[in-house]
């Protein structure tokens, strides 16, 4: 979309607005000047006598005519009109370039405010906006999971410390959750121990490092043999790691990345998504809304939303929003389901169970794969688990 077009039209509005403002001020100044002149003229005439009175009269009449000639209200009106025209053009342009009313895609089905509010409160907590979350709960008088709040407070405390280059809190957390973390391929605990260990070596504290390794690195020896071997070998270069084959240990730590890694593992452990669910749902919404709006005119004409079990058109999503495997039989075009398990033919093509049954006339004979010349029997097909 050309935001530039909108900007051009907008600039015209601004021009008219400025023109109007300055013109109004000019007009007022002009009127003021005329009146001022009249005042001066009257004062210059002196205040006594008939002739003065006559002069005053004349001056006032003169002023009246001049002001009438100026017709300031008329000028004002025309300025305002010009600005209004510019504004209307802008409205038209925006309505053309933007989707005028996105609520067209909205169907009036219940969105329970209580449920939604609780989701919002939890979202604010997980984004570390604790004060705002509390304020929201107060104003919306809704509930939120206090446990979740505490967990996230805990997480952000450690996260902040880690980001600032202080691994102690994270380390004690990792050691407390040693068993659960071991199942992960990326070993946060070992990584953190490594920092402490290398730090000691850098300062040349060989004995201390060795003791540390015995206490904390040794338990990883069976699962992380290679890494531990390398670390222990680096003890030989204590105090001069920069000249060793292990200079990589000295590379500046990316605390930011480590903190992110920690947050992910933390969420994983407490059974929370590492991405924000509210953000995901809204981003998906933004992605499908343009399509949905286009389709909606067709849909409403055909069917009632409430009785609709399945949305009649596919809404394709980016791969990062694809959370489930979906099997659509290429023959029957039906989506998954119990009777529709994917079956692997001996040639490698996959059809739904139902279509293999149909093609084989209920397993009574062999059938040709619809994709290649291969003949198959249902008995030769294997069910797949996606």
């Amino acid at each position, binding site marked *: 979309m050309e935001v530039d077009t909108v900007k051009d039209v907008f600039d015209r509005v601004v021009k008219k607005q400025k023109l109007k403002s300055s013109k109004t001020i000019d007009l007022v100044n002009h009127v003021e000047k005329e009146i001022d002149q009249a005042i001066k003229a009257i004062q210059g005439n002196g205040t006594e006598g008939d002739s003065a009175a006559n002069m005053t009269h004349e001056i006032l009449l003169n002023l009246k005519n001049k*002001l009438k000639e100026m017709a300031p209200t008329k000028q004002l009106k025309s300025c305002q009109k010009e600005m209004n025209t510019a504004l209307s053009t802008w409205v038209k342009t925006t309505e053309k370039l933007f989707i005028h009313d996105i609520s067209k895609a909205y169907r009036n089905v219940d*969105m329970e405010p209580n449920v939604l509010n609780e989701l919002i409160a939890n979202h604010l907590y997980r984004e570390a906006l604790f004060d705002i979350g509390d304020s929201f709960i107060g104003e919306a008088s809704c509930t939120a999971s206090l446990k979740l709040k505490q967990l996230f407070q805990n997480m952000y405390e450690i996260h902040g410390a880690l980001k600032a280059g202080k691994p102690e809190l994270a380390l004690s957390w990792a050691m407390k959750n040693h068993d659960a973390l071991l199942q992960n391929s990326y070993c946060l605990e070992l990584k953190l121990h490594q920092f402490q260990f290398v730090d000691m070596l850098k300062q040349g504290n060989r004995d201390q490092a060795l003791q540390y390794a015995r206490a904390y690195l040794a338990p990883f020896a069976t699962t992380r043999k290679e890494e531990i071997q390398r670390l222990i070998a680096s003890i030989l270069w204590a105090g001069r790691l920069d000249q060793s084959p292990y200079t990589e240990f000295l590379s500046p730590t990316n605390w930011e990345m480590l903190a992110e890694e920690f947050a992910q593992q933390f969420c994983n452990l407490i059974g929370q998504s590492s991405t924000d669910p509210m953000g995901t749902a809204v981003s998906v919404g933004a*992605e*499908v809304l343009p399509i949905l709006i286009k389709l909606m005119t067709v849909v409403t004409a055909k069917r009632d939303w409430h009785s609709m079990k399945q949305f009649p058109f596919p809404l394709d999503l980016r791969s990062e929003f694809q959370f489930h495997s979906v099997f659509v039989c290429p023959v029957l075009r039906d989506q998954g389901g119990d009777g529709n398990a994917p079956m692997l033919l001996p040639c490698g093509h996959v059809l739904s169970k139902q279509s293999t049954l149909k093609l084989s006339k209920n397993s009574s004979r062999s059938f040709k794969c619809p994709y290649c010349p291969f003949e198959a029997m249902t008995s030769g097909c294997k069910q797949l688990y996606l």
Partner: protein
Amino acid sequence: MEMAIDTPSPSPSSASPAPSAAAGRQTRAAESVRLEHQLVRVPLEALRATARTNHRLAEKEIAAVLSSASAAPGDNGAAAAVDHLTSLVSRLHGLKRKMEEGARAEELQVQRCRARLDRLAAASAGDDGEWEDMRLKRILVDYMLRMSYYDTAAKLAETSGIQDLVDIDVFLDAKRVIDSLQNKEIAPALAWCAENKSRLKKSKSKLEFLLRLQEFVELVRAKNSLQAIAYGRKYLAPWASTHMKELQRVFATLVFRSTTNCVPYKVLFELNQWDSLVDQFKQEFYKLYGMTLEPLLNIYLQAGLTALKTPFCFEGNCPKEDPLSLDGFRKLAEPLPFSKQHHSKLVCHITKELMDTENPPLVLPNGYVYSTKALDEMAKKNEGKITCPRTGEVYNYTELVKAYIS
């Protein structure tokens, strides 16, 4: 068409070549910018309203000064004339001050418009994550403002630095009217109607009529029948041509009184009439400013959940990353239809990545399917052995077969 058997294609590879990721991102950004009508429309309407008020003020004052100057009393001597004219000059000075204020207000609206246009221009060029984050914050502030959670809205806007991108002051204006309606005062709402008379008339709004009806009912409730009739004559009669039925019904309350048990009239005296007036006002207010009638959050969420909702979301092994693994989102999605898919999409159980021709699915002898990438890596680490993560069975890499899922 649905039942037609696809013509066999010589190559089993699925899907047409994907358009380049960058191009996809670009069109996506452009499309999502097109949804932001409200963002640019509201400050425009605010600017229009401010400009109109300023114009009216200037027009009124200048006209008053003009007519007063023409009628200056020349007969009472020069001194009186000078006094009179001097008072006019000071009046003009007052006007100028007010106009400067007005110009500043307009300038603010202009700035806001520009900030938003700049924001949109940056959307297709800038950082996706940041744009999405800011959009979510804007949408949440919008929701809070519509639900009257003003303090939280202001706090969120401030901490996120998006004051220019949300319409707090516009909503605070509306809040005055809403608060007064909740206190059973009609005057501010009527004043609002008068301010926006021409535009309300254009959209055939009957808000003013409803407000007048309520005021009439209140007079009947207070047993001021004569006053009620006079009021009706003055304010309700003009609506007779378009809203005769409602008018007749309300007038009948004169007979039934507020203690009636006759249902069609009893409801008119119920207190929740005021709530429906608040709702009615909100609708008119949204329309006037070019806002969506529903909160943006509800619109985005409903669309998102419609696309995300699949039967698999409600199974036990729904991944946590799917919003529909949470009870709250499941509840919201309950009345929505399931999404439809035209093509198979396989998400690798191990890497969570989508499988495609670059990373095709491989089948273990037990029928479980994983991506080539994941299994290759596992085989490399374990000397060619593959352990099925879901059943624990162990196989050789050589036992795997390719599957063509289109």
